[in-house]
Protein backbone atom coordinates (compact mmCIF):
# COMPACT_ATOMS: atom_id res chain seq x y z
CA UNK A 1 0.00 0.00 0.00
CA UNK A 2 1.42 3.36 -0.95
CA UNK A 3 -0.11 6.75 -0.20
CA UNK A 4 0.58 10.43 -0.22
CA UNK A 5 0.20 12.59 2.91
CA UNK A 6 0.12 16.33 2.77
CA UNK A 7 2.69 17.55 5.32
CA UNK A 8 0.08 19.84 6.81
CA UNK A 9 -2.12 16.81 7.54
CA UNK A 10 0.42 14.78 9.54
CA UNK A 11 -1.14 15.94 12.79
CA UNK A 12 -4.57 14.95 11.58
CA UNK A 13 -3.33 11.48 10.83
CA UNK A 14 -1.78 11.20 14.29
CA UNK A 15 -5.00 12.48 15.80
CA UNK A 16 -6.96 9.86 13.89
CA UNK A 17 -4.96 7.08 15.52
CA UNK A 18 -7.16 7.13 18.60
CA UNK A 19 -6.21 3.63 19.68
CA UNK A 20 -2.57 4.57 19.73
CA UNK A 21 -0.34 6.65 21.92
CA UNK A 22 1.80 8.53 19.43
CA UNK A 23 5.41 9.61 19.83
CA UNK A 24 7.53 11.85 17.66
CA UNK A 25 10.91 13.55 17.91
CA UNK A 26 10.95 16.73 19.97
CA UNK A 27 13.83 18.82 21.19
CA UNK A 28 14.38 19.72 24.84
CA UNK A 29 17.46 21.65 25.95
CA UNK A 30 19.06 20.80 22.62
CA UNK A 31 18.41 17.08 22.96
CA UNK A 32 16.23 15.30 20.42
CA UNK A 33 14.08 12.55 21.91
CA UNK A 34 10.91 10.69 21.10
CA UNK A 35 8.17 12.29 23.18
CA UNK A 36 4.42 11.93 23.29
CA UNK A 37 2.95 14.07 20.57
CA UNK A 38 1.48 17.21 22.03
CA UNK A 39 0.20 19.64 19.42
CA UNK A 40 2.04 19.64 16.13
CA UNK A 41 4.61 16.98 15.30
CA UNK A 42 7.50 18.06 13.09
CA UNK A 43 9.70 15.50 11.46
CA UNK A 44 12.65 17.76 10.73
CA UNK A 45 14.96 16.19 13.25
CA UNK A 46 18.52 15.06 12.45
CA UNK A 47 18.34 11.88 14.47
CA UNK A 48 17.25 11.50 18.06
CA UNK A 49 19.95 11.35 20.70
CA UNK A 50 18.71 7.93 21.74
CA UNK A 51 17.24 5.37 19.37
CA UNK A 52 13.68 4.18 20.01
CA UNK A 53 14.93 0.92 21.54
CA UNK A 54 13.69 1.96 24.97
CA UNK A 55 10.06 1.55 23.87
CA UNK A 56 10.37 -2.21 23.90
CA UNK A 57 13.43 -2.42 26.12
CA UNK A 58 13.17 0.35 28.69
CA UNK A 59 16.22 1.30 30.72
CA UNK A 60 14.34 0.15 33.81
CA UNK A 61 11.88 -2.71 33.84
CA UNK A 62 10.22 -4.13 36.96
CA UNK A 63 9.84 -7.90 36.58
CA UNK A 64 7.97 -8.57 39.78
CA UNK A 65 7.56 -7.36 43.31
CA UNK A 66 8.29 -9.55 46.29
CA UNK A 67 7.34 -9.63 49.92
CA UNK A 68 8.46 -12.01 52.59
CA UNK A 69 7.08 -12.05 56.08
CA UNK A 70 9.59 -13.49 58.52
CA UNK A 71 9.29 -17.26 58.62
CA UNK A 72 7.04 -17.45 55.58
CA UNK A 73 7.70 -18.17 51.92
CA UNK A 74 8.19 -15.12 49.72
CA UNK A 75 5.20 -13.90 47.74
CA UNK A 76 5.87 -12.73 44.20
CA UNK A 77 3.67 -10.55 42.03
CA UNK A 78 4.59 -10.30 38.38
CA UNK A 79 4.45 -6.80 36.90
CA UNK A 80 3.77 -7.11 33.19
CA UNK A 81 3.88 -3.98 31.05
CA UNK A 82 0.58 -2.33 30.17
CA UNK A 83 -1.04 -3.29 26.89
CA UNK A 84 -1.23 0.19 25.44
CA UNK A 85 -0.55 0.52 21.71
CA UNK A 86 2.25 2.91 20.93
CA UNK A 87 3.33 4.25 17.57
CA UNK A 88 6.59 6.10 17.00
CA UNK A 89 6.93 8.55 14.13
CA UNK A 90 10.13 9.65 12.53
CA UNK A 91 12.15 6.51 13.18
CA UNK A 92 15.29 6.49 11.06
CA UNK A 93 15.92 3.36 8.98
CA UNK A 94 19.09 2.53 10.89
CA UNK A 95 17.18 2.52 14.18
CA UNK A 96 14.45 0.40 12.68
CA UNK A 97 17.08 -2.09 11.65
CA UNK A 98 18.26 -1.97 15.25
CA UNK A 99 14.82 -3.08 16.29
CA UNK A 100 15.09 -6.10 14.01
CA UNK A 101 18.25 -7.10 15.86
CA UNK A 102 16.69 -6.54 19.27
CA UNK A 103 13.75 -8.71 18.20
CA UNK A 104 16.15 -11.52 17.39
CA UNK A 105 17.90 -11.28 20.74
CA UNK A 106 14.79 -11.23 22.86
CA UNK A 107 13.11 -14.09 20.98
CA UNK A 108 16.14 -16.33 20.75
CA UNK A 109 15.95 -19.53 22.82
CA UNK A 110 13.42 -17.95 25.16
CA UNK A 111 10.80 -15.37 24.61
CA UNK A 112 11.39 -12.44 26.87
CA UNK A 113 7.81 -11.77 27.92
CA UNK A 114 8.53 -8.23 28.98
CA UNK A 115 10.18 -7.32 25.72
CA UNK A 116 7.64 -9.20 23.65
CA UNK A 117 4.58 -7.75 25.30
CA UNK A 118 5.89 -4.24 24.79
CA UNK A 119 7.16 -4.95 21.28
CA UNK A 120 3.90 -6.52 20.16
CA UNK A 121 2.09 -3.31 20.94
CA UNK A 122 4.56 -1.11 19.08
CA UNK A 123 4.43 0.32 15.62
CA UNK A 124 7.30 2.23 13.97
CA UNK A 125 6.64 4.78 11.29
CA UNK A 126 9.98 5.51 9.68
CA UNK A 127 11.35 8.46 7.83
CA UNK A 128 13.84 7.91 5.04
CA UNK A 129 17.07 9.93 5.32
CA UNK A 130 17.19 12.07 2.21
CA UNK A 131 20.51 13.33 3.46
CA UNK A 132 22.63 11.64 6.15
CA UNK A 133 21.50 13.12 9.47
CA UNK A 134 25.02 12.86 10.89
CA UNK A 135 28.54 13.19 9.58
CA UNK A 136 29.22 9.73 10.95
CA UNK A 137 26.44 7.75 9.25
CA UNK A 138 27.63 4.50 7.66
CA UNK A 139 24.45 2.47 7.20
CA UNK A 140 25.37 1.47 3.68
CA UNK A 141 28.43 -0.45 4.79
CA UNK A 142 26.47 -2.58 7.27
CA UNK A 143 23.83 -3.79 4.89
CA UNK A 144 21.43 -0.96 5.50
CA UNK A 145 20.34 2.03 3.54
CA UNK A 146 18.98 5.49 4.23
CA UNK A 147 15.72 4.32 2.75
CA UNK A 148 15.58 0.86 4.26
CA UNK A 149 12.18 -0.29 5.44
CA UNK A 150 13.56 -3.16 7.46
CA UNK A 151 11.88 -3.19 10.88
CA UNK A 152 9.40 -0.49 10.02
CA UNK A 153 5.65 -0.68 9.75
CA UNK A 154 5.43 2.34 7.49
CA UNK A 155 8.21 4.12 5.63
CA UNK A 156 7.69 7.79 4.96
CA UNK A 157 9.71 9.72 2.42
CA UNK A 158 9.89 13.48 2.47
CA UNK A 159 8.91 14.86 -0.94
CA UNK A 160 9.02 18.52 0.01
CA UNK A 161 5.43 19.52 0.79
CA UNK A 162 4.18 15.96 1.24
CA UNK A 163 5.22 12.53 2.41
CA UNK A 164 5.27 9.41 0.34
CA UNK A 165 4.04 6.57 2.56
CA UNK A 166 4.67 2.89 2.02
CA UNK A 167 3.06 0.30 4.26
CA UNK A 168 5.55 -2.39 5.13
CA UNK A 169 3.52 -4.56 7.48
CA UNK A 170 -0.09 -5.35 8.19
CA UNK A 171 0.10 -3.05 11.19
CA UNK A 172 1.36 -0.37 8.86
CA UNK A 173 -1.53 -0.93 6.54
CA UNK A 174 -4.02 -0.60 9.34
CA UNK A 175 -2.36 2.62 10.57
CA UNK A 176 -2.71 4.01 7.08
CA UNK A 177 -6.23 2.73 6.66
CA UNK A 178 -7.25 4.47 9.87
CA UNK A 179 -6.26 7.73 8.21
CA UNK A 180 -9.06 7.30 5.69
CA UNK A 181 -9.30 10.26 3.33
CA UNK A 182 -6.25 12.01 4.73
CA UNK A 183 -4.10 9.81 2.58
CA UNK A 184 -4.31 10.13 -1.16
CA UNK A 185 -3.33 7.70 -3.79
CA UNK A 186 0.08 8.61 -5.16
CA UNK A 187 0.28 9.83 -8.70
CA UNK A 188 2.87 8.40 -11.02
CA UNK A 189 4.92 11.56 -10.58
CA UNK A 190 4.91 10.99 -6.82
CA UNK A 191 6.23 7.50 -7.28
CA UNK A 192 8.84 8.75 -9.65
CA UNK A 193 9.93 11.50 -7.29
CA UNK A 194 10.09 9.05 -4.39
CA UNK A 195 12.23 6.73 -6.41
CA UNK A 196 14.60 9.51 -7.37
CA UNK A 197 14.80 10.81 -3.81
CA UNK A 198 15.67 7.29 -2.70
CA UNK A 199 18.29 6.97 -5.37
CA UNK A 200 19.83 10.30 -4.41
CA UNK A 201 19.79 9.37 -0.74
CA UNK A 202 21.63 6.15 -1.38
CA UNK A 203 24.15 8.03 -3.47
CA UNK A 204 25.01 10.49 -0.69
CA UNK A 205 28.60 10.12 0.45
CA UNK A 206 28.99 8.26 3.72
CA UNK A 207 31.77 6.96 5.84
CA UNK A 208 32.45 3.30 5.20
CA UNK A 209 33.61 0.11 6.79
CA UNK A 210 35.93 -1.20 4.16
CA UNK A 211 35.31 -4.91 4.31
CA UNK A 212 32.19 -5.57 6.35
CA UNK A 213 31.72 -9.08 5.04
CA UNK A 214 35.22 -10.06 5.90
CA UNK A 215 34.98 -8.52 9.37
CA UNK A 216 33.81 -11.57 11.36
CA UNK A 217 36.69 -13.76 10.24
CA UNK A 218 39.25 -11.01 10.42
CA UNK A 219 38.17 -9.92 13.88
CA UNK A 220 38.30 -13.50 15.01
CA UNK A 221 41.89 -13.61 13.87
CA UNK A 222 42.65 -10.35 15.65
CA UNK A 223 41.62 -11.26 19.16
CA UNK A 224 45.14 -10.87 20.45
CA UNK A 225 45.98 -7.85 18.35
CA UNK A 226 47.88 -5.10 20.19
CA UNK A 227 45.78 -2.64 18.24
CA UNK A 228 42.91 -3.01 20.69
CA UNK A 229 44.80 -1.34 23.51
CA UNK A 230 46.22 1.24 21.17
CA UNK A 231 42.86 2.20 19.72
CA UNK A 232 41.19 2.21 23.12
CA UNK A 233 43.96 4.23 24.74
CA UNK A 234 41.81 7.30 25.26
CA UNK A 235 38.66 5.42 26.35
CA UNK A 236 37.32 6.75 29.62
CA UNK A 237 35.00 3.82 30.30
CA UNK A 238 31.72 5.68 30.16
CA UNK A 239 28.52 4.20 28.81
CA UNK A 240 27.65 6.66 26.07
CA UNK A 241 28.45 4.41 23.09
CA UNK A 242 26.33 1.54 24.24
CA UNK A 243 23.52 3.42 25.97
CA UNK A 244 22.95 5.37 22.76
CA UNK A 245 23.30 2.32 20.54
CA UNK A 246 20.17 1.01 18.80
CA UNK A 247 21.30 -2.59 19.19
CA UNK A 248 23.11 -2.85 22.53
CA UNK A 249 20.93 -4.87 24.82
CA UNK A 250 22.97 -5.97 27.82
CA UNK A 251 21.22 -5.71 31.14
CA UNK A 252 21.62 -6.24 34.82
CA UNK A 253 19.05 -7.57 37.26
CA UNK A 254 18.81 -6.17 40.74
CA UNK A 255 16.56 -6.41 43.73
CA UNK A 256 15.52 -2.96 44.82
CA UNK A 257 14.60 -3.47 48.43
CA UNK A 258 12.03 -1.05 49.79
CA UNK A 259 11.46 -2.46 53.25
CA UNK A 260 12.90 -5.09 55.52
CA UNK A 261 10.21 -6.04 58.05
CA UNK A 262 8.65 -7.59 56.11
CA UNK A 263 11.29 -7.83 53.41
CA UNK A 264 9.87 -6.35 50.26
CA UNK A 265 10.89 -4.78 47.02
CA UNK A 266 11.10 -5.21 43.28
CA UNK A 267 13.21 -7.25 40.98
CA UNK A 268 14.33 -4.81 38.36
CA UNK A 269 16.10 -5.07 35.05
CA UNK A 270 18.27 -2.11 34.09
CA UNK A 271 20.51 -1.54 31.12
CA UNK A 272 24.09 -2.49 31.66
CA UNK A 273 27.12 -1.65 29.72
CA UNK A 274 30.16 -3.62 28.59
CA UNK A 275 32.28 -0.46 28.65
CA UNK A 276 31.88 -0.03 32.41
CA UNK A 277 34.93 -1.50 34.15
CA UNK A 278 32.71 -3.37 36.60
CA UNK A 279 30.66 -5.08 33.90
CA UNK A 280 32.62 -8.32 34.04
CA UNK A 281 33.87 -7.94 37.60
CA UNK A 282 33.84 -11.27 39.43
CA UNK A 283 33.12 -11.60 43.14
CA UNK A 284 36.65 -12.88 43.58
CA UNK A 285 38.07 -9.59 42.43
CA UNK A 286 39.17 -11.08 39.11
CA UNK A 287 38.13 -9.11 36.07
CA UNK A 288 38.44 -10.98 32.77
CA UNK A 289 38.24 -7.72 30.84
CA UNK A 290 40.52 -5.59 32.95
CA UNK A 291 41.56 -3.05 30.34
CA UNK A 292 39.98 -0.53 28.02
CA UNK A 293 41.33 -2.52 25.10
CA UNK A 294 39.61 -5.69 26.21
CA UNK A 295 36.37 -3.80 26.62
CA UNK A 296 36.55 -2.05 23.27
CA UNK A 297 37.28 -5.40 21.65
CA UNK A 298 34.21 -6.86 23.29
CA UNK A 299 32.00 -4.07 21.98
CA UNK A 300 33.35 -4.24 18.46
CA UNK A 301 33.59 -8.01 18.22
CA UNK A 302 30.12 -8.45 19.63
CA UNK A 303 28.78 -6.27 16.87
CA UNK A 304 30.86 -7.52 13.98
CA UNK A 305 31.77 -11.06 14.90
CA UNK A 306 29.86 -12.81 17.71
CA UNK A 307 26.46 -11.49 16.74
CA UNK A 308 27.18 -12.33 13.15
CA UNK A 309 28.11 -15.87 14.14
CA UNK A 310 24.84 -16.21 16.04
CA UNK A 311 22.38 -14.42 13.83
CA UNK A 312 24.06 -13.99 10.45
CA UNK A 313 24.01 -10.21 10.53
CA UNK A 314 26.06 -7.40 11.97
CA UNK A 315 24.81 -6.02 15.23
CA UNK A 316 25.50 -2.51 14.00
CA UNK A 317 23.23 -0.46 11.80
CA UNK A 318 25.58 2.42 11.11
CA UNK A 319 23.73 5.19 12.91
CA UNK A 320 27.05 6.73 13.98
CA UNK A 321 25.92 7.75 17.48
CA UNK A 322 28.81 6.04 19.23
CA UNK A 323 31.19 8.00 17.01
CA UNK A 324 29.68 11.44 17.25
CA UNK A 325 29.04 11.24 20.99
CA UNK A 326 32.25 9.62 22.13
CA UNK A 327 33.94 12.16 24.43
CA UNK A 328 37.40 11.13 23.26
CA UNK A 329 36.91 10.32 19.59
CA UNK A 330 36.82 6.53 19.57
CA UNK A 331 35.49 5.78 16.14
CA UNK A 332 34.04 2.33 15.45
CA UNK A 333 34.49 2.71 11.69
CA UNK A 334 38.14 3.53 12.16
CA UNK A 335 38.56 0.74 14.71
CA UNK A 336 36.98 -1.95 12.54
CA UNK A 337 38.91 -0.83 9.49
CA UNK A 338 42.20 -0.62 11.28
CA UNK A 339 41.89 -3.97 13.05
CA UNK A 340 40.59 -5.84 10.03
CA UNK A 341 43.30 -4.35 7.82
CA UNK A 342 45.96 -5.63 10.15
CA UNK A 343 44.28 -8.95 10.79
CA UNK A 344 46.39 -12.07 11.06
Amino acid sequence: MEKILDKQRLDDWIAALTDWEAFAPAVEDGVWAFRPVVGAARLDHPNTKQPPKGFAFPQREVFFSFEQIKGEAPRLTQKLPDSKHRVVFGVRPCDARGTVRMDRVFADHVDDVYYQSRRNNMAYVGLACNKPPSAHCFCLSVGGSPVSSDGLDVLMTDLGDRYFLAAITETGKSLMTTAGDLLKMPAAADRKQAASVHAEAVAQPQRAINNPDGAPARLKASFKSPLWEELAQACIGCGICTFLCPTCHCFDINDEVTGSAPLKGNRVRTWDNCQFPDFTMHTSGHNPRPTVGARLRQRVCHKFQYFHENFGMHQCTGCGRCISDCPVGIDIVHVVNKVTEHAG
Partner: protein
Amino acid sequence: MSEEEQAYEPKIVAFLCKWCSSAGSDLAGVSRIQYPANATPITVPCSGSISPLYILSAFNKGADGVLLSGCHIGDCHYIEGNYLARRKIYLIKELLEMVGVEPDRFRMSWVSAAEGAKYAQVVKDFVADLKPLGPQNKLKADRT
Protein backbone atom coordinates in the same frame (compact mmCIF):
# COMPACT_ATOMS: atom_id res chain seq x y z
CA MET B 1 -3.77 26.28 58.15
CA SER B 2 -6.03 24.13 56.04
CA GLU B 3 -7.50 20.89 57.34
CA GLU B 4 -5.33 19.01 54.93
CA GLU B 5 -2.25 20.62 56.37
CA GLN B 6 -3.47 19.82 59.85
CA ALA B 7 -3.87 16.15 59.02
CA TYR B 8 -0.55 15.81 57.25
CA GLU B 9 2.23 14.68 59.53
CA PRO B 10 5.69 15.27 58.08
CA LYS B 11 8.28 12.57 58.65
CA ILE B 12 11.53 13.93 60.01
CA VAL B 13 14.84 12.20 60.51
CA ALA B 14 16.80 13.95 63.26
CA PHE B 15 20.55 13.33 63.46
CA LEU B 16 21.62 14.26 66.96
CA CYS B 17 25.12 14.28 68.28
CA LYS B 18 25.54 12.07 71.28
CA TRP B 19 27.09 14.58 73.65
CA CYS B 20 25.00 17.73 73.34
CA SER B 21 21.88 17.45 71.25
CA SER B 22 20.90 13.94 72.23
CA ALA B 23 21.51 14.90 75.84
CA GLY B 24 19.48 18.06 75.23
CA SER B 25 16.59 16.01 73.95
CA ASP B 26 16.92 13.85 77.07
CA LEU B 27 16.56 16.98 79.15
CA ALA B 28 13.41 17.89 77.25
CA GLY B 29 12.15 14.48 78.30
CA VAL B 30 13.16 14.83 81.91
CA SER B 31 11.44 18.23 81.92
CA ARG B 32 8.37 16.62 80.31
CA ILE B 33 8.29 19.30 77.61
CA GLN B 34 5.75 18.13 75.03
CA TYR B 35 6.60 18.44 71.35
CA PRO B 36 5.42 16.77 68.15
CA ALA B 37 6.45 13.17 67.54
CA ASN B 38 7.35 13.68 63.89
CA ALA B 39 11.10 13.61 64.38
CA THR B 40 12.72 10.23 64.92
CA PRO B 41 16.17 10.68 66.41
CA ILE B 42 19.30 8.92 65.22
CA THR B 43 22.16 9.43 67.62
CA VAL B 44 25.58 9.81 66.01
CA PRO B 45 28.90 10.37 67.77
CA CYS B 46 29.33 13.92 66.52
CA SER B 47 27.77 16.32 64.05
CA GLY B 48 31.14 16.09 62.30
CA SER B 49 30.43 12.46 61.49
CA ILE B 50 27.33 13.28 59.46
CA SER B 51 28.05 12.65 55.84
CA PRO B 52 26.08 14.68 53.31
CA LEU B 53 25.02 11.31 51.94
CA TYR B 54 23.00 10.70 55.12
CA ILE B 55 20.92 13.75 54.34
CA LEU B 56 20.45 12.90 50.68
CA SER B 57 19.65 9.33 51.62
CA ALA B 58 17.00 10.38 54.15
CA PHE B 59 15.30 12.49 51.49
CA ASN B 60 15.66 9.65 49.00
CA LYS B 61 13.96 7.30 51.43
CA GLY B 62 11.08 9.68 51.84
CA ALA B 63 11.89 12.02 54.70
CA ASP B 64 9.82 15.20 54.49
CA GLY B 65 12.41 17.01 56.54
CA VAL B 66 15.91 16.37 57.84
CA LEU B 67 17.18 17.88 61.07
CA LEU B 68 20.80 17.98 62.16
CA SER B 69 21.84 19.05 65.60
CA GLY B 70 25.17 19.31 67.34
CA CYS B 71 27.06 21.04 70.09
CA HIS B 72 27.45 24.80 69.98
CA ILE B 73 30.62 26.05 68.36
CA GLY B 74 33.42 25.77 70.88
CA ASP B 75 31.66 23.07 72.88
CA CYS B 76 32.26 20.07 70.66
CA HIS B 77 33.14 17.02 72.71
CA TYR B 78 35.59 16.17 69.97
CA ILE B 79 36.97 19.71 69.89
CA GLU B 80 36.33 20.59 66.27
CA GLY B 81 33.88 18.11 64.81
CA ASN B 82 31.13 20.70 64.64
CA TYR B 83 33.39 23.15 62.82
CA LEU B 84 33.91 20.53 60.14
CA ALA B 85 30.17 19.84 60.12
CA ARG B 86 29.29 23.51 59.79
CA ARG B 87 31.30 23.86 56.59
CA LYS B 88 30.13 20.62 55.00
CA ILE B 89 26.51 21.11 55.93
CA TYR B 90 26.54 24.65 54.66
CA LEU B 91 27.57 23.32 51.27
CA ILE B 92 24.89 20.63 51.08
CA LYS B 93 22.28 23.11 52.26
CA GLU B 94 23.27 25.49 49.47
CA LEU B 95 23.16 22.68 46.96
CA LEU B 96 19.70 21.56 48.05
CA GLU B 97 18.41 25.09 47.69
CA MET B 98 20.12 25.44 44.34
CA VAL B 99 18.21 22.55 42.81
CA GLY B 100 14.97 23.92 44.19
CA VAL B 101 14.36 21.89 47.33
CA GLU B 102 12.45 24.09 49.74
CA PRO B 103 14.94 25.52 52.28
CA ASP B 104 12.54 24.64 55.09
CA ARG B 105 12.98 20.94 54.43
CA PHE B 106 16.43 21.00 55.91
CA ARG B 107 17.44 22.42 59.23
CA MET B 108 20.47 22.52 61.42
CA SER B 109 20.66 23.64 65.01
CA TRP B 110 23.07 23.78 67.88
CA VAL B 111 21.42 22.33 70.97
CA SER B 112 23.46 21.92 74.13
CA ALA B 113 22.81 19.36 76.82
CA ALA B 114 21.22 22.13 78.87
CA GLU B 115 18.82 23.20 76.15
CA GLY B 116 15.96 20.76 76.45
CA ALA B 117 13.43 23.49 75.82
CA LYS B 118 15.35 24.61 72.77
CA TYR B 119 15.32 21.14 71.29
CA ALA B 120 11.56 20.92 71.78
CA GLN B 121 11.17 24.31 70.16
CA VAL B 122 13.37 23.40 67.22
CA VAL B 123 11.21 20.36 66.52
CA LYS B 124 7.97 22.32 66.99
CA ASP B 125 9.10 25.04 64.63
CA PHE B 126 10.35 22.56 62.08
CA VAL B 127 7.08 20.64 62.05
CA ALA B 128 5.12 23.87 61.73
CA ASP B 129 7.30 25.00 58.82
CA LEU B 130 7.05 21.63 57.09
CA LYS B 131 3.30 21.26 57.25
CA PRO B 132 2.46 23.86 54.61
CA LEU B 133 5.00 22.27 52.25
CA GLY B 134 3.22 18.93 52.15
CA PRO B 135 4.95 15.63 51.37
CA GLN B 136 8.44 15.76 49.92
CA ASN B 137 8.42 14.13 46.50
CA LYS B 138 11.32 15.84 44.81
CA LEU B 139 14.08 13.59 46.04
CA LYS B 140 11.95 10.70 47.20
CA ALA B 141 12.46 7.47 45.32
CA ASP B 142 9.45 6.13 43.50
CA ARG B 143 9.78 2.44 44.25
CA THR B 144 6.87 1.13 42.26
